[in-house]
């Protein structure tokens, strides 16, 4: 039991979500193994983003629990969960468009390095030091995602592809153990998509567990170790890419919709 | 970045510079100077410049005035400003004082303590006036009082509160501050005397939550015991309220023998209407001297019939007989004011008239030395016949009036009539 706890970094237990009488998720169970890449797929309205919002604390589930590293987090606020080591990107890009690229990533470091209001007000040496530290860290990450040269551009001036990248970079800045990517490849062209998937792999290689929602089956199939399929808020299948490819219910679920 | 910031400052500096020049060119604009002096601006500009360089007395007697001419309390300052400007005009038309023109410099406080303070300092240090009349409000007067004392400049306030001429610490008046209006104390005394005469002693107070209402209310409560008055209700309403039925209903429940209302502006009419609507006619209704304009009787549309209020002579000029001491001044003032501005006289313009006339008298006899003017006011204003009574200043009394300054009048057939 204990050993299972260890290797499952995230454990979603009997999670249900009801919006005004509408069942968005019902009795959902699945685990994410430490250091793996897990994909959640399913037709639109299957409840994928809702699940993300629950895991990252946008709102608590109507029922069920979410355990992160063995502790239940479903009752925590978003920023507390971020502190615990879960970070995310958004389906509809949510960059801070009133900041530069660098500042966006620097804000990502917020959870790790913090200067108090007073300290920064009086420009105490410690706050200066921290600021410097944050900057270096952010630059490193920008180089890692291959945007080191754009650090001073306003975030909203970037093309869509790079905005997606930057969101991932910002999420990385908080040094998460689990990163939740909401459709990282949506709206990207061939090359960009390829870049994105290799970046995800690289992130995973650094030991960060990845949970992603994605419609682009190519991406999903070639990067994920495990896949969960949702339909109408319920899990209809779970397993390795191969299993899912040959799973009858999945094909049915997708008939008429994408894939 | 830095370039951008610098350019901002450049822009700002240029803007202000432009405005400075514009006002340096025509200082007479900086303060609405009485009509006559507006002529030959060029000459005046030079004069003004001269005075700025050296505080030598110029060809004119400079008198400053700060009234709340606009804003929420303009009902006080507006008639005061008009009156003062009219008077200055007349004096200058009649050849000025000792052959010198009277230069009246008026600033608008908008009833704001900060502005009053700034403007008084400016009048004293920049315009170099020798005496100041106003401000219109008790609040603003109390706000500027320290400035007048500090700069040893005589100030004749046109506001009611007795605190203006009563230093709590010394129990004596402030050295440099005088005032012309009757205090609320006198208005209250007049009303209470009238009530006592009719042995009505169970009264209800209604007042507006503004400076005017509050100080009146304060005096009503303070003096009640002296006149054996029992206050059964003490209700308030906002200066912009649309309805006072609730307050009056409560009062009705307590069935007092008389109601005293202390407010100005539209509310004192609305409250009368509500009082009629509630069929409380059998309770005598007393208004403060704030009611002292015929416009209010018109607005009340009949509801004012039988209402009592204490008024100064200038409001009831027609009712005075040539035997009344104030007959001449009051008639004169009323005629001129109506002729010039064709609007009914309010209770407040007269305060400015009294203040400026005293100043004129002082200037005429001692010139424009501040200290001399102050002493003159204190020692030589004896039996001065003004709009709001006969003034007699003394070291212990910088208001100079008694409660006889008020006459109790009753509204009859849509007009004032004297009430025994």
């Amino acid at each position, binding site marked *: 039991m204990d050993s299972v706890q260890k290797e499952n970094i995230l454990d979603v237990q009997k999670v249900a979500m009801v919006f005004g009488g509408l069942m968005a998720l019902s009795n959902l169970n699945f685990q994410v193994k430490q250091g793996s890449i897990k994909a959640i797929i399913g037709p639109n309205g299957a409840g994928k983003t809702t699940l993300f919002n629950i895991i990252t604390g946008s709102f608590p589930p109507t029922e069920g629990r979410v355990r992160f590293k063995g502790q239940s987090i479903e009752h925590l606020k978003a920023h507390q969960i971020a502190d615990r080591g879960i970070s995310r990107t958004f389906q509809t890009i949510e960059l801070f468009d009133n*900041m530069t690229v660098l500042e966006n990533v620097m804000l990502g470091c917020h959870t790790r390095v913090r200067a108090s209001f007073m300290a920064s007000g009086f420009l105490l040496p410690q706050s200066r030091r921290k600021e410097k530290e944050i900057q270096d860290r952010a630059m490193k990450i920008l180089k890692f995602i291959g945007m080191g040269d754009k650090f001073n551009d306003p975030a909203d001036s970037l093309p869509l592809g790079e905005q997606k990248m930057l969101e991932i970079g910002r999420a990385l800045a908080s040094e998460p153990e689990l990163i939740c990517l909401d459709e990282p490849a949506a709206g990207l062209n061939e090359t960009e998509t390829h870049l994105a998937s290799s970046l995800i792999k690289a992130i995973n290689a650094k030991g960060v567990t990845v949970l992603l929602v994605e419609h682009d089956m190519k991406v999903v199939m070639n990067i994920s170790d495990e896949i969960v399929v949702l339909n109408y808020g319920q899990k209809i299948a779970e397993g390795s890419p191969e299993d899912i490819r040959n799973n009858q219910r999945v094909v049915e679920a997708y008939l008429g919709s994408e894939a | 970045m830095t370039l*951008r910031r610098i350019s901002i400052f450049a822009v700002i500096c240029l803007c202000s510079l432009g405005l400075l020049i514009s006002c340096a060119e025509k200082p007479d604009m900086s303060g609405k100077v009485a009509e006559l002096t507006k002529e030959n601006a060029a000459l005046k500009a030079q004069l003004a410049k001269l005075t700025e360089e050296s505080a030598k007395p110029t060809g004119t007697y400079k008198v400053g005035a700060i009234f709340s001419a606009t804003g929420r309390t303009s009902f006080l300052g507006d008639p005061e400003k008009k009156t003062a400007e009219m008077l200055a005009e007349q004096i200058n038309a009649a050849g000025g004082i000792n052959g010198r023109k009277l230069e009246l410099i008026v600033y608008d406080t908008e009833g704001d303590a900060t502005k009053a303070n700034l403007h008084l300092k400016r009048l004293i240090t920049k315009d170099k006036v020798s005496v100041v009349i106003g401000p219109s409000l008790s609040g603003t007067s109390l706000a500027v009082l320290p400035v007048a004392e500090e700069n040893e400049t005589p100030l004749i306030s046109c506001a009611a509160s007795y605190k203006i001429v009563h230093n709590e610490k010394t129990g004596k008046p402030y050295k440099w501050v005088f005032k012309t209006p009757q205090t609320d104390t006198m208005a209250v005394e007049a009303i209470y005397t009238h009530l006592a005469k009719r042995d009505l002693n169970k009264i209800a107070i209604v007042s507006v939550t503004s400076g005017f209402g509050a*100080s009146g209310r304060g005096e009503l409560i303070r003096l009640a015991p002296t006149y054996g008055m029992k206050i059964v209700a003490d209700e308030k309403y906002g200066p912009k309220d649309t309805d006072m039925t609730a307050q009056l209903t409560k009062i009705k429940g307590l069935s007092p023998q008389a109601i005293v209302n202390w407010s100005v502006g539209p509310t004192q009419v609305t409250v009368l209407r509500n009082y009629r609507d509630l069929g409380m006619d059998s309770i005598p209704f007393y208004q403060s001297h704030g009611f002292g304009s015929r416009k209010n009787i018109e607005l009340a549309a009949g509801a004012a019939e039988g209402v009592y209020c204490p008024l100064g002579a200038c409001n009831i000029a027609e009712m005075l007989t040539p035997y009344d001491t104030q007959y001449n001044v009051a008639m004169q003032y009323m005629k001129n004011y109506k002729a010039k501005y064709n609007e009914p006289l309010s209770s407040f313009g007269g305060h400015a008239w009294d203040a400026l006339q005293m100043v004129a008298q002082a200037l005429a006899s001692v010139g424009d030395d501040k200290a001399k003017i102050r002493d003159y006011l204190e020692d030589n204003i004896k039996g001065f016949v003004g709009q709001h009574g006969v003034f007699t200043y003394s070291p212990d009394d910088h208001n100079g009036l008694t409660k006889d300054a008020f006459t109790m009048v009753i509204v009859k057939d849509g007009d004032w009539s004297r009430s025994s």
Partner: protein
Amino acid sequence: MLRIGKLPITIFAVLIIIFPWIADHISAIDHYPDIMVFAGIYCLIAMGLSLLMGYAGQISIGHAAFYGIGAYVSAILTVRYGLNPWTGMLAGMVVAAVVALLVGAPSLKLKGHYLAMATLAFGIIVYIIFNEETEWTGGPDGMSGIPGLSIFGFGFDSVEKYYYLVWGIVFIVFIFTINVIQSGTGRALRAIHSSEPAASAMGVDISRFKVIVFVYSAMLASLAGSLYAHYLNFINPSTFDLFFSIKLLIMIALGGMHSIWGAVIGSGLITFLSYEWLHYFGEFEVIVYGAILLLVTIFLPHGLVGVPGIVKGWLRR
């Protein structure tokens, strides 16, 4: 965008120092330092508000209340209890902070117009209290005889001295605020302004930051109130009414919300407009005031600090 170089700050400091000297040598403006004292007092409030509104994106139409709390606490403690003015000043800031905490915590959960109404209501309620609690506040007639400020026998009793006191404080607060803006705190605030979900997902405790800034701005307003009370030696409620809260909004909008410089410029400009320059328009004052306001909101969406940007835009063409 927000990095503020040393040069403009130095210029700012120099301007502050030499202004009285300049004014003294130009007869037309030799009374300006007096007005500048009030400009400085309003500037203190405006800086706090611009942090709250421009950076954290929260509206307050009730800051006149904190301004008033500062003034009244100072006045009551010094006049009624004979305490030292500086103590009064400190006490005022503490009281303001506590009130801001109590009101801010629930209010700042509100959004947009609802927050505007809540703060508006708060402001009016406090104003009514100033008017009604006569035995404490003196009611609408206000309180007079408030002592001036002095330290170790050195009294700030002349306009010039008080000018340097006020603007010294303004400069310190200015530097402090800039540091905050350029630190992680400022970044977090802008993040909240830009996207609350993203900010919280990045670990920013939104409500905490909102409240911190609200309290900070309240304390600045209170400090300004005390400075006002001890300069004028008199206060009455009408100074702290709804219209002043609105005036503060106007200062910030006019100067430009998104820059701390906007607060400085806006407060200075409005002060001089309403206490000095608009007098030349006599009765038309109100209308000119309204017109200026409208034109700025229409043509300078970023306030006066946006002007250089616009000018640059023209030059490029």
